[in-house]
């Protein structure tokens, strides 16, 4: 296990200096972002954060709450802007949200007055592309296993199904990057495991790039090619751990080894009673 830890240490920081690497799809460099809390305190959400994401990569970002992982994802989506530093997508700075960067929220992001099908079709309709792509709505519903629930309203389906709708809704516009903000945070572990496998299938099928924010160590390892560990006060990247699992097996020795490494780095090992 120590070998993994050592190689992870060596890879810490960005990988732009790696000559063999492809041009990054997403490039975050020296980003600073702070917020003023309601009681007037300044909170440094992100401090000197740099990260490159290559095409086709699945990057997990993990860290305790307040480490700025969601803020980082919002910067990539274009829902927020950095005060310093730059966030670029295919070499161009990110100015505003764009369907080429799909976003899946934690939960409760479906429109309650629209049916499952209408929720998935929302993006196409908003962009005036619904007529020529109407058939794809049903394809995507089938891909996330929601055929038969087209006409249900969000309050009539389970949390796991709602997140599958949210994923189909983001995928329908063929995004190059799918940004996932703790999409399984509110689900039970069985639903969660099912959704994780569905995500992996979609990732392989569409050769998509994914950035996943999570607070679940197993999920970060199971899904990620790399796990970015973030720390709070101020929010910064502590370390990047590359994951090389021969097969997706939640109980293999290799998996458990990564688990131990990550838990150690996240200081789960120093509990004092």
């Amino acid at each position, binding site marked *: 296990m120590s070998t993994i830890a050592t190689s992870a240490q060596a890879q810490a920081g960005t990988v732009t200096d790696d000559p063999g690497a492809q041009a990054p799809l997403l490039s975050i460099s020296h980003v600073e972002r702070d917020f003023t809390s309601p009681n007037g305190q300044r909170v440094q959400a992100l401090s000197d954060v740099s990260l490159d994401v290559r095409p086709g990569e699945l990057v997990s970002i993990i860290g305790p709450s307040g480490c700025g992982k969601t803020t980082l994802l919002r910067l990539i*989506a*274009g*829902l927020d802007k950095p005060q310093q530093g730059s966030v670029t997508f295919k070499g161009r700075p990110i100015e*505003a*949200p*764009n*369907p080429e*960067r*799909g*976003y899946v*929220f934690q939960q*409760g*992001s479906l*429109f*309650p*007055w*629209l*049916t499952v099908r209408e929720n998935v079709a*929302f*993006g196409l*309709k*908003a*962009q005036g592309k619904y007529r020529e792509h109407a058939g794809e709505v049903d394809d995507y519903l089938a891909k996330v296993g929601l055929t038969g629930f087209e006409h249900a*309203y969000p*309050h*009539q389906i389970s949390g796991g199904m709602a997140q599958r709708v949210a994923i189909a*809704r*983001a995928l329908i*516009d063929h995004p190059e990057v799918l940004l996932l903000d703790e999409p399984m945070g509110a689900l039970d572990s069985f639903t969660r495991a099912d959704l994780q496998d569905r995500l992996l299938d979609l990732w392989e099928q569409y050769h998509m790039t994914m950035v996943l924010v999570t607070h679940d160590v197993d999920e970060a390892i199971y899904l990620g090619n790399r796990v970015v560990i973030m720390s709070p006060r101020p929010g910064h990247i502590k370390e990047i751990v590359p994951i090389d699992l021969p097969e997706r097996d939640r109980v293999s020795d290799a998996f458990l080894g990564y688990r131990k490494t990550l838990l150690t780095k996240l200081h789960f090992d120093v509990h004092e009673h």
Partner: protein
Amino acid sequence: MTTTITEFAAQARGRATPATKTATKTAATPNAAGQTGPAEPAAATDQPTAAATLPATDAQADRPARRALPYPLTVAFTAAGFLIAALVNVFFPQVKPVEFEQGQLWIFLLNGEEAYRALLVILALLYVVIGVVDARRGPADVARFRERAQFRFAAGLALAVWDVTGTKLQTLPQPFFPGPSKVIEPFLTDGDYIALNTFYSVRLFAAGFIVGVFLGVVTGVIIGWFARAYYWVFPVLKITGVIPAVAWMPFALTLMPTPFIAAMFLLVICSWFPVAFLTAQGIQSTPKMLIEASRTLGADTPYILFHVAIPNAMPSIFTGIGMANSLSFLTLVISEMMGQPGGLGYYIDQAKSWSAYNEILTAIVVMAVLFSLIMKLIELVRGHVLRWQKGLIK
């Protein structure tokens, strides 16, 4: 174990005792059976062990006696109230003197007394027809019909009591509270005029309410969506909104070209305020997450306004419309009673000046029916627009 069973038995008997009393009552008023029916199984489920262990308890022995009335009898029971009222009207002696006028209704020449009898028979037949239709539509409709049977029976009896106290014995203070026959009579003697005034009210209400609601939604969307508009308009809305619209009546009557437009103006302002206020609140309550989700899906600002913020405000808009609706009824009648050339309020005002209290009651009956219909219509529109809420909010 033995003590436990004995305790259960005691409990079961304790529960059964009040039920037995109800069963005795059932014989007197047969329909009560339908009501007491569900109470007994509930008691049984509370004590499943007792039911399982013990053979026949008092409660079980009583079961056949408390079975619901056969459905045809329930239908007959429903109609019976109105038929009893008709029989009371025919056979109860007319103690105090009363005069009836004849009037033309379509091809029939009737007086109030005859029209009242005809109405009771029609009501009885109507409920028989409804009962038959419900039986064909399914168990849910049958259950609903059963549940309403007692109330409908009581309504018939209440009419009979009113008839006796208002017309036959005249124990109610006269001429303020005449019997049902005298309240129906103006439909015969004065039917065209009532219809004309009703039409005037409907026209005035529709014009004022629709324009008011439309303006309210538009204003509400603007102040809810644009922070600047909110800053300048909302305080004005808040202050002027609490003033009852009828307070502006002197200005309206003087400044508007016709009394109709004056009253319409009052209706517009009374429905404008609650709709604008609640629309603005609904727009502002749009969850940030929904707006952000729309932006990541490629929606521009106008699209978000019309497809996210306004749908999100719909429940709130309909709350405003409900408030506007009741305020409008009030404003309508008050403004018609003061300075309108027609309308149900005007009709009441005229009837008052000749002390024709039965006509006032007639106009009130028309209002009750008319306003209920309008509310029902709005409720239907609301149910359709907010169909996504079905099962979400109880």
